[in-house]
């Protein structure tokens, strides 16, 4: 297996009582609740954690993009990636991902990724996403055109990386007379593109197409959904006439390891429960603005949601039960991860070892335990 250490960089000093006076920790949460001195400490601590992950033997260290939220302090993840390049030697640096539809000129994304690829001499992994629905409230970009803009931005970025410039790009949302990347990417034909997704059959079919074969990552989902989507990708690849490699299949999950199951649960609880209930939880209208999903997918989602009933707070036990998070002794964690690996053939594991308000000392111990007690057994 290949191991990624992924960070969201949540703003841990958030006053949770204040946070719950607002509809979400996103977009409408007053930024007077952000203290720059505490925030600067957060950035320093988190960058240290990412750098330490290389030392512990993680193959990839990863960041991503979110806007106007305490959930993740990286509206510009490339800035963090750039810092990481200077402080690491061999780990791959993954930006998974940039939200393509949110920009009005995707060439800038192509350019910045090309720069990072040069700066790191080919250590960059890119990720192409659409952003969470909240991002469309934050950016003002019309979610109705999210899919169209994503597809078109993807085509433009890949063309910018691979076609000799200058060339003209004639699209619907993007029209550019001159596309001519300086610098060109270091890796040829271009840096790897990962597709993190909550899962949808359209995305899977698109990512698995023979001309792309993009590694697909199921994020923040229960084990049944992870298995279902990864097997859907595998099946889709077969229909395209090839066998998906394990490195094309991955999933992302918060993981916490301690000596015993009891201790792990005790130490992880606050981090897990704040991640899902305080940082991530947003109302339906923010999470899924119209068009973010196709009309037919949205109808299915609404039906599913009706069947599930309205959600109260998630308890850690419930999240462990569904396999959305993996918390326990080294043996428990190894068993759960290897079971999902064996059920799907996926070999790309994206771990989130700091989550919610989990403090630095526990994060460090979690990382060390994972690296020494879990990683070697799953390799």
């Amino acid at each position: 297996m290949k191991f990624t250490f992924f960070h969201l960089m949540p703003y841990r000093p958030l006053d949770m009582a204040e946070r719950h006076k607002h509809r979400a920790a996103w977009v409408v949460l007053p930024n007077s609740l952000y203290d720059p001195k505490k925030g600067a400490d957060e950035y320093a601590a988190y960058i240290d954690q990412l750098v330490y992950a290389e030392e512990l033997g993680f193959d990839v260290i990863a960041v991503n993009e979110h806007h106007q939220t305490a959930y993740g302090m990286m509206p510009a993840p490339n800035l963090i990636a750039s810092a990481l390049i200077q402080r690491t030697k061999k780990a791959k640096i993954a930006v998974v991902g940039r939200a393509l539809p949110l920009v009005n000129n995707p060439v800038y994304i192509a350019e910045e990724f090309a720069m990072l690829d040069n700066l790191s001499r080919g250590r960059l992994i890119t990720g192409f996403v659409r952003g969470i629905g909240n991002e469309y409230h934050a950016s003002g970009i019309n979610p109705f055109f999210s899919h169209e803009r994503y597809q078109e931005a993807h085509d433009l970025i890949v063309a910018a990386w691979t076609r000799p410039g200058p060339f003209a790009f004639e699209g619907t949302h993007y029209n550019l007379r001159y596309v001519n990347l300086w610098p060109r990417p270091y890796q040829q034909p271009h840096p790897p593109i990962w597709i993190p997704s909550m899962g949808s059959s359209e995305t899977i079919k698109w990512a698995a197409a023979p001309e792309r074969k993009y590694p697909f990552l199921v994020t923040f989902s229960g084990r049944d959904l992870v298995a279902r989507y990864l097997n859907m990708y595998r099946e889709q690849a077969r229909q395209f006439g090839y066998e998906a490699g394990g490195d094309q299949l991955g999933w992302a999950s918060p993981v916490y390891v301690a000596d015993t199951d009891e201790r792990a649960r005790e130490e992880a609880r606050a981090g897990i429960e704040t991640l899902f209930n305080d940082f991530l939880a947003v109302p339906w209208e923010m999470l899924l603005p119209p068009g973010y999903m196709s009309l037919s997918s949205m109808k299915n989602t609404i039906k599913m949601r009706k069947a599930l009933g309205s959600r109260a707070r998630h308890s850690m036990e419930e999240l462990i039960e569904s396999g959305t998070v993996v918390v326990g002794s080294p043996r428990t964690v190894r068993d759960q991860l290897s079971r999902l690996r064996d059920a799907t053939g996926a070999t790309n594991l994206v771990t989130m070892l700091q989550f919610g308000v989990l403090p630095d000392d526990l994060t460090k111990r979690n990382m060390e335990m994972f690296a020494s007690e879990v990683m070697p057994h799953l390799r």
Partner: protein
Amino acid sequence: MAVQEHKHTVRDVSVRLCRDGEGESLLFLHGAGGWPAWGPFFDALARRCQLLVPEHPGFGLSDNPDWIRNVADVAMYYLDFLDALEGPPVHLVGHSLGGWIAAEIAARNTSRIRSLTLIAPAGLRVKGLLSGDNFIWSPEEYARNLFYDQAFAERELAHVPSEQEADIALTNRYMATKLGWEPRWFNPALERWLHRVRVPTLVLWGRDDKLFPSAYAKAWAERLPDSRVDIIPECGHRPHVEKADLSAQKILGFIGGRK
């Protein structure tokens, strides 16, 4: 005369159309909430006019052509629609999104329009007076913020939609997003061209509108060459629902007085 519902086709686009009454034609363009249920407002209008209420392309069960990308496309569609109608020019009435569409039509061509009534129209932005964020509102906030008299909101909230009603509401929400998300409920170019609306115009607004503040009415009046403003007290964003008879009277009075 009973309300007749049928499919109405203009060029290659077919929409639902309700028709009732006799006399001069009045074309009502609905808001982003979709094709309105037939109620006292329409009854009152249909007693004096031939009332036509189409469901916009992209909404409900009407055709949803991909080429409709923005409100200007809808306005062009309705210019075709008006050209294809038999008889003399019509009284054009639009609510909210429908008011915006009506203004875009009238700024382009008034040869098929006799008078214009804008009820709490979208389409203009007044700096410093933000519209309400209907896209972030919960269903309860949405219902409550659209009415002054909360009994109307309670009634909406108590209604359990059928599967088809729920599907239509979702379709409408998608189309509303396509047309209104960005820039939020306005066309920056429209204000420049409102002097071209060369027909008498009534701007009708609920004083307590929480979606588009009634203070917007002044901005419309300043730019429309022949307009009058009428603000209805104790009334939210849907005067034709909340003050159905009064709204109909005001429109009929305006139309009648302008003959």
